[in-house]
């Protein structure tokens, strides 16, 4: 059951026989795990794909009414305007702050519960129904309830986001905790390693692929939910601003903010998460 929920796919790389870390969602890793391809050629393909996207957009804008679909240059000019006026960076920073806090909280709490539930069967049996419930509550419901119960403030907003993400982290990490090799833990016990050393150097490294999978899918989920949270109950941030643009039917503004935010997420993915993953899983020959 849990395997399906995380959309676990076996990655096409050689693995240690016993561990089967779920691959991250395909949309998050455009060619990220491709083995044996030359990086130069990969880069060109990615550039070509970007160019094709902009071209299609331009064509669509020319065919359609410019008010409902502005062309790329108009949107770019708008991004520049909003950046110069500092309005875009301001809202972006607020939203990113919420993303970071909610992401960190969700990863930490989810990883702790995931490890505990993978380790102790009784705990797993006890919380399993809660987990199914958590996985299936619509994001909108938790957001509304958090605002109603805790007021229209930042903590309620972050809590709502974290609650939406925690169950999926738990499911992924629990899968990893179940796959931890007891034989390697026996090595730690035979050599009388301290609990701390055992946890940090023997146990945790076996969870890294699962934690990375949870982090990458988590980032994309969280920033989507943060926008909804901001739209419903905050007076600053990208989500709030999108709502304002919607009221004024300002499609250029909406696209400008969306693109700016998407760019930030892509940068985080490419310059932070992917190098981190490569570093941590470099031993997989």
């Amino acid at each position: 059951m849990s395997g399906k929920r995380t959309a676990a796919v076996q990655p096409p790389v050689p693995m240690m026989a016993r561990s089967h870390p779920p691959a991250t969602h395909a949309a998050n890793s455009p060619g990220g795990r491709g083995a044996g391809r030359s990086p130069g050629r990969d880069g060109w393909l990615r550039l070509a794909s970007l160019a094709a996207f902009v071209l299609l957009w331009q064509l669509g804008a020319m065919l359609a009414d410019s008010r409902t679909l502005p062309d790329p240059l108009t949107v770019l000019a708008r991004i520049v305007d909003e950046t110069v006026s500092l309005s875009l960076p301001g809202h972006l920073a607020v939203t990113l702050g919420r993303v970071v806090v909610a992401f960190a909280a969700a990863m930490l709490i989810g990883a702790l519960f995931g490890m505990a539930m993978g380790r102790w069967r009784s705990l797993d049996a006890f919380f399993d129904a809660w987990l199914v419930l958590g996985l299936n509550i619509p994001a909108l419901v938790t957001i509304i309830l958090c605002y109603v119960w805790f007021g229209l403030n930042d903590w309620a907003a972050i809590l709502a986001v974290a609650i939406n993400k925690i169950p999926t982290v738990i499911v992924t990490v629990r899968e990893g905790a179940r796959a931890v090799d007891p034989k390697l833990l026996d090595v730690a016990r035979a050599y009388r390693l301290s609990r701390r050393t055992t946890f940090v150097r023997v146990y945790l490294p076996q969870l890294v692929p699962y934690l990375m999978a949870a982090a990458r899918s988590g980032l994309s989920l969280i920033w989507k939910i943060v926008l909804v949270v901001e739209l419903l109950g905050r007076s600053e941030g990208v989500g709030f601003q999108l709502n304002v643009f919607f009221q004024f039917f300002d499609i250029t503004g909406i696209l400008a903010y969306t693109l700016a935010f998407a760019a930030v997420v892509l940068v985080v993915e490419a310059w932070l998460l992917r190098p981190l993953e490569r570093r941590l899983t470099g031993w997989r020959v």
Partner: protein
Amino acid sequence: MLEIRIDRKCYPDRGGRPHVALSGLNLAVQRGEFVCVVGPSGCGKSTLLNIVGGLDRELDGRVTMNGAFPEDVGFMFQEPRLMPWMSVLDNVLLVAREGVSEGGSGAVAPEGAAERQRERAIALLQAMELEDVLDAFPARLSGGMMRRVALARAFINEPELLLMDEPFVSLDSPTANRLREMLVAQWQRCGASVLFVTHDLREALALADRVCFLSAAPGRVVLDLAVELPRPRDADAQAVDRLYQALLARHPELLGGLARSVETKGAAQ
């Protein structure tokens, strides 16, 4: 001196019924002695090592080394069991303890201790002829090289007691012989007591000061045999072979099952 007294050790089998693995087993290993435990498969050899190594603490009985449960232990498993995410050197350093050194100069700065551990690990890996792969990950190594890393790991703390659970099984015989030579060299250097479990009687005769034969489950020692062949020995050497044949002639009932399994294994290679 290591003293093992196991009155009774059982664990639930697959059906959940208690299976008596060891019963009435008494075994002593002198300081610096190399003892091999030989027995048919399923007689509880691995269970015995897990108990002595502290991996399995539920038993009726007592294991003591100089009055306390043995804590200064090196353990070599049937598989190499290296951490695949650590380099060869880091795998050895993972289990390295402070305060194991020839000098023993008490208070040293932590950096100094770490540096000394590192030097010790590198020297040991060099003795195992692994100096070219210090920074390689285990997945790149051959089976024989992985065992050598595991052997270096077992000796890094120069333990009082070394436990070995058929560590050279499923290696081709030149590789296994080479590893046995390395093992004996390290053992003679640091003077650990060794408890070495195997189902291969020739291997036991080639290595041990004393060979203890276990019965079929529930296992107990049924024959305690001192091996007085001069070292260095060789598992294929004539002296070992003569002793092997003599034993088979003298104790056919005891070694029948064992010899057969060894014989078929030899034929398959």
